[in-house]
């Protein structure tokens, strides 16, 4: 077990190194930010001077090795645009994304799980037939569109919720709903399978034979057992939610890492983009690792697949 965990962590590290390499080369192939930084009337010589000072005139491989070297010393570098340590910029944005991710998770759980349970309990009935398209609608909505419609309806027409910004609980509602829609659909589907799996088990029949009411069986046993796979899926979804935050944060002007990433790509602020991608992929890889481990702990028959 320990060996396999070590192996998985090693593989995760290789994956993350791969992420950084892919991003590094794609970013640097897309041009450097010197022209964006200087005033339009800067001369050729002045641009070359700044480019040299920024180090973008060195061979790509040299820049890559220098980057990896700094990273090994846990130095994320300094933003070219904001001229602040990247770590500090990231640290100021992460709480917002965490807040948004958590909000979306709450929305997804609060709506997705009961919906999934209902679909399982009333399998094949009209309840399921109505709920399935609704759940699928959740993952068919383009977030940029649903975001705009939400702003239009609740922010502008009804005036119930703030149209932008990140202050206070009310500002969190719309972005959380927009972001949570997709995860809500995933949760509902997972809950449905997990419940159906449990409902088909012998103990359900046995318990009912003992005279327990169906409701009691569901509440006491089925829900609890079905929760196990759901919890592990939730771990995986955290990574997906952080990735999905990119568009939602842009639409709602939510000052998290997604918006930071889009802005930094537009600015070609290389080190910030790389740090954001590093953060998201570490979260993603770690959460999938944890989900795997959780599975293995819950069900020892499942071997860790290398």
């Amino acid at each position, binding site marked *: 077990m320990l060996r396999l965990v070590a192996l998985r962590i090693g593989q995760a590290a290789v994956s*993350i190194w791969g992420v950084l390499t892919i991003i590094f080369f794609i970013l640097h192939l897309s041009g450097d930010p010197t022209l964006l930084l200087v005033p339009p009337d800067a001369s050729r010589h002045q641009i070359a001077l700044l480019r040299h000072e920024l180090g973008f005139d060195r061979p790509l491989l040299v820049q890559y090795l220098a980057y990896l070297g700094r990273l090994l010393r846990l130095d994320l570098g300094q933003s070219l645009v904001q001229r602040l340590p990247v770590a500090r910029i990231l640290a100021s944005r992460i709480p917002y994304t965490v807040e948004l991710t958590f909000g979306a998770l709450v929305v997804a759980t609060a709506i997705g799980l009961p919906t999934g349970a209902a679909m399982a309990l009333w399998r094949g009935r009209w309840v399921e037939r109505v709920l399935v398209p609704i759940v699928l609608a959740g993952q068919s909505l*383009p977030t940029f569109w649903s975001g705009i419609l939400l702003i239009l309806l609740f922010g502008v027409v009804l005036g119930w919720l703030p149209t932008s910004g990140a202050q206070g609980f009310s500002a969190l509602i719309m972005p959380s709903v927009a972001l949570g829609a997709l995860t809500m659909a995933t949760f509902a589907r997972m809950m449905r399978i997990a419940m159906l799996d449990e409902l088909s088990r012998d103990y359900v029949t046995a318990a009912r034979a003992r005279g327990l009411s169906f409701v009691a069986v569901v509440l006491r046993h089925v829900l609890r057992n079905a929760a196990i796979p759901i919890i592990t899926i939730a771990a995986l979804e955290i990574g997906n939610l952080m*990735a999905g935050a990119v*568009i939602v944060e842009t639409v709602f002007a939510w000052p998290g890492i997604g918006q930071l990433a889009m802005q930094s790509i537009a600015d070609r602020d290389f080190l910030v983009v790389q740090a954001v991608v590093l953060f998201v992929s570490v979260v993603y890889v770690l959460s999938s690792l944890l989900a795997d481990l959780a599975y293995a702990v819950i069900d020892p028959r499942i071997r860790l697949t290398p």
Partner: protein
Amino acid sequence: MSGATGGVLRLPRSIRALAAILGAYAAVAILAPWLAPHNPLHQVLLLRLRPPLYRSPSGTIYWLGTDDVGRDLLSRVIFGARASLSVAILSVSVSLLAGTPLGLLAGWFRGWPAMIIMRIVDSMLSIPAILLAVLTVAVLGPGFFDLILVLGLTRWPRYTRLAYAQTLQIATRPFIRAAELAGARTGRILRRHVLPNIAGPLLVLATTEFGLMILFEAGLSFLGLGIQPPYPSWGSIMSDGRQYVGRAWWMTVFPGVCLFGLVLTVNLLGDRLRDHLDPRSAYR
């Protein structure tokens, strides 16, 4: 499990109905030049942002109104179906054709080349997809074919991972050994025995991805990095209309509804197909 001989007619009615809706979308896209009442590129600057059912002084009716440079919105939405569908179909094909063989070979031969492929796959999958796409667009440049290439290049790992896992599983089945004993060479085994058996899950994934690609195309066009102006795509029309969401809701709402309807159809279809192909793993 269902045989390939079943044919379309043996499919459940819900699948046929959804396929028909999809077909209608495709028909609109193909027949756009005959269906659209106006040239989708023709501007009348004096008739900007007119609401639906607007009748111009010369008597022309703009059923869905006009956009921000005075083009007929209905015609643009009809032509926009072309961009959405063709980008989605082609990019799914590209990533399916690139990803599947890679996963198939990695799962069959295993060893260190497979390890390398799967680590690359893992790396690509842990980068937020939209960021990867935006960055790749920055390198390759936007435009129709570049967009397909970008989406194809960033989405293949999903097919590779699925094909890999499925192949690993299929490779242990006795009928593979039976085929070996029957004298089938590797190529034939992969083609005749492995591929047909992993095709079902891949098809379901392709359907899900098809819906996602439609959203991606719209998303990238929305960010100004997709279909090039003045050619319409639903995403770019919505992007144009974003600024006018309070006053010209029609620019955002109509293409959005079309997009939503298409993606919902595709997702429902994928869902039904999944149920149909393997009832036990329904909703996974």
